[in-house]
Structures are given as C-alpha cells and as structure tokens.
C-alpha cells in the first residue's frame, strides 16, 4: 500500500505510520502526503478519501479537516469531492441505502465545519428531508403508513447535530432554529411508535409501549439536552478547531437541491387496517430501526455518560461492526480504540447485546456477535470478560421476562461463548435453579445451555465443567446413545421382530436395492405382521444403520429413502415415523432434530406432519420445560421458508438472464432480417439477401439465441411453478400452526375476564423491579465500588494490548469472570404456576414465530384473521398481533 493510502487509512490510530499521537500532527502529515500526490493520482485520491470517510465514519472529523486544508490550495479537487459526495448521497437516498445516507450526511456536516460547505447548503438539505418527512405523515398528501421512512430522515438530521450543531448555531443561527422548530412540529404530527412486540422484555412491551419514549423522541430529548449544554460533548473530536485560522480562508462550496424517493400511493381513500398494516410492515423492513436500547446493568455500574455521548458511542460501535464485518482484527481494535476520552466497556457490551438480541433480527447472523464478544474479551482481557459476565448475570436475573426469541439466541450465544473459553463458568452461582420447579425459566435456561454445550463438546467434558455445582448434573441431557428397540445384544430377548430387523440388516449389508427391500417388506413382512410392527421394524432398523454419524444418516436416507417414502406415504404414517425417530433418539435431542430435518429435506416428512407431531400431547406437555419441540418446529418453518427464498433468488436471476437473452435474440433476429432484406447485386442481377455464408451464420445465431431464450424461459416457468407450490406449502403450514396454537391455548388459558394481560398470568411474580427507566441510567452517578472509577483514556492512546495468540487462551485472566459477583442468587423461588408458565411460554413462542416470519404471514393475514375470529383468546390475539407489528385496537 502506497504511503498516502496508509496515512489516510491509519489517521488517528496509534500506528507506525505516524510518529506521535497528536491529532494535529496526523492531519498535517496526511494533508502533506495527499497534496504531494494530488497531481499524479487525483482520481485515486478522490475515490479513496470518499471510501475512507464512508467506511471509517468515526474518523470523519479528521477526514473533514484534511479536506478543509486541501480546499485552501486545491479548490477544484475539493469541489469534486463535494460533488461526488452529493451524487453518492442522492443515489443512496433514492435506493434507500440507510447506512450510506446517514454517514454521508455526517460527512457533509463535518465538511461544513471545515468551511468546505456553506452552512446554508447543509440547512437546505436538512429542510428538504424534513419537508419530505412532513409530507409522508400527512394524511391528505402523503402516506402515513410509511412513517418509518419519515422517521428515518428526521433521525438522520438529528444524528448530524453532535458533529455540527455548534457550528451551525454559530454560523446560521436562524436557519438551524427553523430546522429545530420544524422537527418539533414533525414530532407533534407523527404517530408515537409503540414498538409492540419488538422489545426485549415482555414487561416493557405491556407498559413501556405507550408511556415510554420511542427512539426518535428519545434522540430528540438527547439533542435538546445537548443544545441546552451549549452543544458541548466529549465524544466527538473537533480537530478543525485547531486549524480554524487557516480554514476560514477556504472557499465554501454549495450543494445542489436533493430529491427524495416517491412513496407508494395509498390504493384507496379509505384504507383497511390490513392494507395499512402491510404497507407499514413493508416500510419498516426498508427503514429498519438501527438499535433498540438494552439496559442491562444496574445504574451505578454503567459509565456515567451524557445522553448524547452515549448515543454517539453507540453510533461509532454500530458503524464499526457494520463496516468491519469479516475483518476481525480491525473490528476489535477500532471498537476498543474509539476517539473518546472516557471508558465505555459497559456501554459497548450493552450495544453488542442489543444487536445480538435485536428484534425482529440483527443486521448480521447472531454468530457474528459471538465472535465480536470473543475478540473483545481477548483485546481487553482485564476488563471485558467481567463486563460480559455481568451482562449474563443481569439477563439471567430477568430471563423470565425476556422475549422467547431472545432467550433462544442467548442460549445459543452463551454456550458458544463458553466453548471458546474452556467452558469455565461459576455454575455454583446458579446451582439454586435445582430448587426451582422444572418450568422455571432460569432452570430451563441452564438446562438448555448445558444441552448446547454438550453438542459443541461432549458429555463428560461438560459434566466436568459443572463440578463446582455437582447437583447441576441433573440438568445435563442424557448421554446421547441410541435406543434401538431390536438390539441383539441381549440374546434372551429375541423376538420375531428382532429376527425381522436382523434380516433387514442383512439385506442392507448385501446392498439390496430399495426396490428389493420394498418387495421384501410387502411380500414377507406385511402379510405376517400388522402395519405398525412393519413400520417400526423398518424405521428403527434403518435408523440404527444410519446412527453412527450425520454422514451415515445421509447415506442411508439417500440409499433407502424410497423405502421410507413407500411405507410412510401420508401424514398419519409420517407422524408415526417421527415418533419412532424420537423413540430411537430419545437420549439425543440433536440427532432427533437432525434426523427429522433431513427427512423433511428429502421430502419423506411433510412440514404439516411435523406441526401435527409437535402439537401432540407428549410435546405440548413440555412446551414450557424444554426447547426440544420448538427446535424441531423452528427447523420445519425455516426449511419451508428457505425453499421460498431460494426459489425467489433463482427466479430473480433467471429473470435477469432472460432479459439479456431476449435482447440478444432480438438483435440476432433484426440482424438476420436486415441481411435478408438487403438488395445485393449477384452476377450483375439484383437479388434479395446478403451473401449466403453470412446469411447462414446469422440464421444460426438467431436460432441459437432464440433457443437459449426459450430454455431460460422454460426454466423460469418451472421455478415459478415450484414457487407457487412452495408458497402454498408455506400458507398451509402457517394456517395449520395457528389453528393448533389456538386449540392448545384455548384448553389452557384462563377465562379472558381473569387474564386479560400477561401480567395476570404472572400475578404473583414481582414485575415492578424489572422496568428500568432508560433515561435514569444516564443521569445517575457512577458507583465506585468496582474501583475503576472514571479512568480517562487519551483519545489516541493504545488501549489494546496485542491479542494473545489463539492457542494461548489460558493467558487470559479468567478469574476476572468471577470478580463481578452481584446478584445471581437473589431469587430462590419462582412463583408462577405450571399452567401459567405453560401459557406464558407458548404465547411467547406464538409472538416470536409471528414476528420472525411476519413478511410471509402478512400476505395471508386475512386467512389468519378468520382463524382468530373464532373465539380467540385476547392474549393469543395479542401475541399474534404484536408479533406482526399490528396495533391491537385496529381490529374488531
């Protein structure tokens, strides 16, 4: 990498490229290098500066100042930077690329601080967005269902103010005042976002929705506090100030007016609640909320930050995680080395957990956040492990109120995290869960974490890891050995069925074909035994043959899947098949789930059979005590959904290639026709058509192009037919699922008059202490009991000791994990009754499933409503509605 590039890239970092840690010197050095390079490689410079500003947004103030200095000497070049930024910004607005819009607006604001842009230009941009926002929420002219887009624009404006609020106030006080008034007016006409169904904790969902502030109101409050503090904040460096004397001499450029994308029109003047809901859902998918604040730590623990500093640090962290996904080293080092003069480990942990648990889904796979947490534990071995442990404890405390989807993610994360740190955890703290009833959420959590640990490792090892709390062994899953009904180990127990099984094993060993085995079944077994015995012998025996590993399972299914298909052709027999799988693998939840999943993959089991089996009494009875049935249900839904997504992807790609094939075919045809109709002189006589060789070639081109076009079209049609089928399967799945939920809940839920709210179910459960006011945490004083106090970080100091080599994990001080023992054994009782917990858990899953697949459920929502119309319990309706993000009052 040539040096100007690395200087740009590394500016602000402690690195060999720069001698000191003085930001002023960084800027001067970088500026000098760029100025020298400018005459040779202007284009590269332009591209690279923009790239850096976009992908390293926490360094934008530094880049802004460098560009400001360049503006003093290379005005034309800087004009190009401004123009390119504006073009990119405009493109991002039209395409709805939220991250780009937000970052480029920040860059424009910072350019204004460095006198590169006219303040009025920035204000005009703000005002255009604001007026667009106001139009969107206007009932007459706009489309209020798209408020998500309007909120996004206003959020972007507010987000710029920490970077340039002070400068705007100084240079364009009246204009910025106008913007603020405009925002206030917007806030008064928009609808409060109630966030039903997206909060991490059930309790927030019931109370916070109406009373609390939504994300935009919250940001507005923070900005107002900032404004009343004279726009002073610690988290945004202002390097341009030390160059102000020079910068004022620069020529400030203007921005062109921007345009915002049009809105989908409302189809009718009177909009049904359902159409409104569908549009709203669409808008929220396109303009998702970036973060939902997760307050994990007790107020006295977290850093005592100004509300706006907290916001800025969250922005930095989210940006680093977004732009450095896949670059572990840089991601961790930027996250721990933010340009702020205060500590922020607790905030960092809260931000990462808020993403890991973000509903409906995080921007990246949950596994990414596992990796980030692992890397930060290695980068800050003295501080971060204890902070993470604290988060686990705090979340464990409130697990009974944690959303079901979040619980599942937390289990998967925690087991994976521990597997990276030798499975060390102070389990004795949680030994008390053994005294809780088996449905107590804390107990179920421990049990499921252990289950996942065993899957990632092995039974004996995990048993050893809980030796500090030997009682917890009780919660370990059984050793995962098969339970083969026709095992021949015990000779005395041999029955006729054993002999059949042995015979089948022999046939398989002799490599008989599926067809031969089918005839053996039909001619030898079935006539002499009843169907049930036949099925059991064949299924159990094949399962046993495929039991040694995942590959053995696949091999047996590929070879003898037809046998199973033949004997289990309908839903009834497939339910029986699943039951047999569960008997065979009763000691191994992973193999059970895996086997059912594979069989669904080979279409030996339908998703409807799985739903029916999941809702059979034996499973329903463990809805609240085990993740096992839910795992199988989740797999079945996600497989159904994956089929749809895969087909959609293929169809899109076929459509693209069809379009280009059509163009090619048309051109070939035109060429041929042109050539055919051309008048030529042949032997002095005029004749129609060009020389025969060329004609022949063109004709063959045209034919081939046409053939290709047709073949793509055929493929496309085939895929479209498959998609129709997949969508039908999806619809059938959800309808059956909701009907089953309705039925089982109807049996269990108390009368609506006695349980109108979830709180009524947990009546004896003290839920008051769980609602933590998000505002409170930022204004309370920091406790100094952890002795850390407020050590200040120099902006460019090296916070990062080199991460230890991967294979020296033991060098991390694991004792720190235990230094932070607060709580943990506070609640030794769990007062929610079994039936109530069953209802709570089941409703939690109803909500989680509805939310996760909302996009696939909305198109069939009318049919779901028909199911709900049949005397659905209000709590069930509420779970479905909040999962779909649908206001409850909108319905009957």
């Amino acid at each position, binding site marked *: 990498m040539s040096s100007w590039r690395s200087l740009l*890239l590394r500016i602000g970092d402690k690195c060999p490229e720069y001698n000191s840690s003085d930001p002023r010197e960084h800027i001067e050095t970088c500026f000098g290098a760029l100025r020298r390079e400018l005459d040779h490689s202007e284009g590269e410079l332009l591209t690279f500066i923009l*790239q850096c500003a976009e*992908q*390293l947004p926490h360094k934008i103030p530094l880049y802004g100042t460098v560009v400001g200095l360049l503006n003093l000497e290379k005005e034309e070049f800087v004009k190009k930077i401004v123009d390119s930024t504006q073009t990119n910004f405009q493109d991002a607005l039209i395409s709805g690329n939220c991250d780009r819009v937000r970052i480029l607006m920040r860059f424009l604001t910072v350019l204004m601080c460095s006198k590169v842009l006219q303040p009025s230009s920035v204000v005009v941009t703000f005002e255009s967005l604001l007026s667009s926002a106001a139009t969107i929420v206007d009932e007459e002219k706009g489309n209020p269902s798209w408020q998500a887009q309007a909120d996004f624009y206003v959020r972007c404006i507010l987000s710029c103010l920490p970077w340039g609020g002070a400068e705007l106030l100084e240079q364009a006080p009246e204009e910025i005042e106008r913007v603020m008034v405009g925002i206030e007016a917007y806030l008064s006409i928009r609808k409060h976002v109630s966030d039903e169904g997206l909060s991490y904790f059930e309790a927030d969902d019931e109370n916070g929705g109406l009373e609390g502030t939504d994300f935009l109101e919250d940001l507005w409050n923070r900005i107002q506090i900032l404004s009343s503090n004279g726009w002073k904040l610690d988290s945004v460096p202002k390097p341009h100030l030390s160059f102000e004397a020079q910068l004022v001499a620069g020529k400030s450029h203007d921005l062109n007016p921007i345009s915002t994308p049009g809105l989908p029109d409302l189809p009718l003047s009177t909009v049904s609640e359902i159409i409104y809901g569908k549009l709203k859902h669409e808008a929220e998918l396109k303009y998702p909320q970036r973060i939902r604040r997760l307050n994990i730590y007790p107020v006295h623990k977290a850093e005592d930050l100004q509300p706006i500093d907290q916001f800025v640090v969250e922005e930095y962290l989210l940006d680093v995680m*977004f*732009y*450095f*996904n*896949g*670059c*572990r080293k*840089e991601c961790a080092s930027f996250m721990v080395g933010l340009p702020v003069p205060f500590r922020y480990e607790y905030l960092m942990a809260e931000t990462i957990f808020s993403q890991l648990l973000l509903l409906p889904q995080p921007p990246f*796979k*949950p*596994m*990414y956040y*596992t*990796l980030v947490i*692992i890397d930060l534990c290695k980068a800050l071995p003295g501080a971060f492990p204890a902070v993470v442990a604290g988060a686990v404890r705090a979340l464990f405390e409130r697990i009974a109120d944690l959303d079901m989807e979040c619980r599942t993610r937390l289990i*998967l994360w925690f087991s994976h995290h521990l*597997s*990276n740190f*030798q499975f*060390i955890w102070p389990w004795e703290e949680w030994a008390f869960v053994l005294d809780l009833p088996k449905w107590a959420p804390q107990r179920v959590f421990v049990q499921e974490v252990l289950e*996942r640990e065993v*899957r*990632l*490792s*092995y*039974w*004996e*090892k995990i048993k*050893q890891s809980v*030796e500090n709390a030997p009682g917890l062994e009780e919660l370990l899953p059984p*050793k995962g*050995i098969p339970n083969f009904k026709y*095992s*021949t*180990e015990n000779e005395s127990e041999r029955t006729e069925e054993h002999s059949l099984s042995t015979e089948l*094993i022999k046939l*398989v*060993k002799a*490599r008989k074909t599926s067809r031969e085995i089918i005839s053996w079944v039909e001619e030898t077994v079935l006539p002499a035994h009843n169907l049930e015995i036949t099925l059991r012998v064949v299924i159990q025996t094949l399962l046993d043959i495929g039991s040694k*590993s*995942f*590959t*053995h399972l*696949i*091999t047996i299914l590929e*070879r003898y899947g037809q046998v199973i298909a033949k004997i289990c052709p309908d839903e009834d027999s497939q339910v029986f098949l699943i039951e047999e799988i569960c008997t065979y693998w009763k000691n191994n939840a*992973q*193999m059970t789930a*895996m086997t059912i999943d594979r069989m669904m993959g080979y279409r030996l089991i339908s998703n409807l059979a799985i739903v029916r089996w999941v809702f059979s009494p034996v499973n329903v009875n463990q809805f609240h005590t085990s993740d096992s049935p839910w795992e199988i249900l989740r797999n079945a839904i*996600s*497989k159904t959904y*994956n089929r749809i997504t895969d087909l959609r992807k293929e169809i899109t790609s076929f459509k693209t290639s069809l379009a280009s094939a059509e163009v090619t075919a048309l051109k070939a045809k035109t060429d041929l026709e042109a050539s055919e109709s051309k008048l030529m002189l042949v032997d002095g006589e005029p004749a129609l058509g060009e020389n025969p060789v060329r004609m022949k070639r063109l004709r063959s081109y045209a034919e081939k192009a046409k053939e290709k076009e047709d073949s793509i079209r055929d493929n496309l049609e085939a895929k479209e037919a498959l998609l129709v089928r997949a969508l039908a399967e999806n619809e059938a799945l959800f309808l059956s699922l909701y009907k089953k939920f309705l039925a089982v809940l109807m049996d269990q839920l108390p009368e609506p008059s006695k349980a109108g709210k979830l709180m009524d179910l947990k009546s004896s459960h003290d839920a008051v202490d769980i609602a933590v006011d998000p505002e409170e945490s930022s204004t309370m004083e920091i406790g100094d009991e952890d002795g850390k106090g407020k050590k200040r970080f120099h902006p460019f100091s090296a916070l990062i000791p080199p991460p230890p080599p*991967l*294979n020296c*994990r033991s060098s991390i001080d*694991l004792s720190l994990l235990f230094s932070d023992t607060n709580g943990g054994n506070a609640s030794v009782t769990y007062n929610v009754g079994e039936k109530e917990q069953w209802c709570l858990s089941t409703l939690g899953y109803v909500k989680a499933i509805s939310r996760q697949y909302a996009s696939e459920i909305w198109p069939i929502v009318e049919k779901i409503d028909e199911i709900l119309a049949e005397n659905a319990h209000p709590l069930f309706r509420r779970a479905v509605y909040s999962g779909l993000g649908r206001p409850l009052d909108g319905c009957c």
Partner: protein
Amino acid sequence: MASLFKDPNKLSAYRDRRFSGTQEEFEQALLSSTTVYVGNMSFYTTEEQVYELFSRAGEIKKIIMGLDKQSKTPCGFCFVLYYSREDTEDAVKYVSGTILDDRPVRVDFDWGFKDGRQWGRGKSGGQVRDEYRTDYDPGRGGYGKLVQKELEAQRQLVDYGAGSLGSFQPAVPLPYGRSGGGPGYGGGSHRYAKDYSRKRNRDDDRRSHEPSKRAGDYEFNRNSDPDSRLEKNPRFRERGDSDEDEEDNGKRHS
C-alpha cells in the same frame, strides 16, 4: 462490506496443488464455492460437533470428514458443504480462528469436494502437517509421525523403563485448567505413541454400555485388529467414510 482492509484477491492463502486448472480458475472456484475446508481439528471431533457449530452459519448439506489413508480414521480436517454462498461466506468469517473442541480451527473457502479429497496426503496416511510436526499434540495423535517413528526406534534400542519418557515430552499445557490432565494422561513410556486418553471417556462409556453393539454394524469389519483401533480412538467411525465404502463395495458387487 469493508473493502478497505480486505484484500479481495486473497480468498485463501492455501493453493491446492491437486487443483488441475489455472490460478484464475482456482480463484473463480473459490469465489463461487459453497464448500469450506476446516483444518486444525482434533482427531476426536465428531461430525455432530461440526454440525452444531457450522449450522449456526446456515443450513448444512453435507459434512465430509478427512480420513487417514491407512487407518480410515479422522485425521484432523473436514469439508462442510452448504446450500448457499452467503452461509458459506459467513462460516469462513465467523468460525475461522474460533475454538472447536478446545482447538482454534481454520476455515477456508474450498474449491469443491471431489471424491478422493477426503484422504490425508501424508506419507503415513494422515495430513502432511502431522508427518513432520515435532510438537506434542494430544488432540492429533501426539507427536508427528516421523518423530513417533524415531521414538519407536529409540525405544527398541534402549529400555528406558517406566516414566522416563518425561525427557521426550515437552511441557504440554494441561487441557483443562481445573481438572488436571484427566485420567491416564501422560502415562508410562509404553503409551507414548498413542496417548489418546484425553477424551477417550466419551465413547468408552458407550462401549461399556453396549459391548457388542459394534459387532452388529452393517459394514464389514475389514480391520484385522479392531480392538487396537478402538483403543486408539473410540470416537472414530471405525470403518471409514461410508461414501468411500459404498463405492468400494458397489464396485465389488456390480
């Protein structure tokens, strides 16, 4: 996403010498592949562990364990095949360098599994890296194969007596911080070449529960001395990869 720090041309530092095409074709294969190569695994890691970890990146199509050519037992690598490219990329991004079964595993894009690639390419049957290693790695069969042979030769020359192996054994950090080395760890000299005790208990129990179960396996027992193999590593699938097996036997029957 972050194009600033990633060298897009460097998809994998490893160039498979068995790939028949050009470098460009190799890179193209890596760019579109839905297969990952997983390296630095413990010999004891099972497919189910791989499944649990890697399915967190996406739906898995297949897992192919790398096997020792001689013993037909896992030799520390595998291929994981996904359905979608995106999941494949996530597996490389999120699993590489993290711990599986106490070891940091390496995950790379692979140009695509072909039959035969499941076998170790070292002279002794395992992976090449285990041929020349001089360190003691209990998860991968102890010392490297060459060192093992050397030690075997020396042992035949001189009878060191019990416990004197200490002089050959470098200080190995104990695998479990709190529990010590586990039963039988680092035993007498007669065991040095096959000190697999660390994780043996996982299937030991299974064996003791069903002592004769293995006899009922559907695959033919082609090993002349199955007990010694079980002794070596009971978590192995004894008769090798079933795909290979199928082909072998298929030929024999057709």
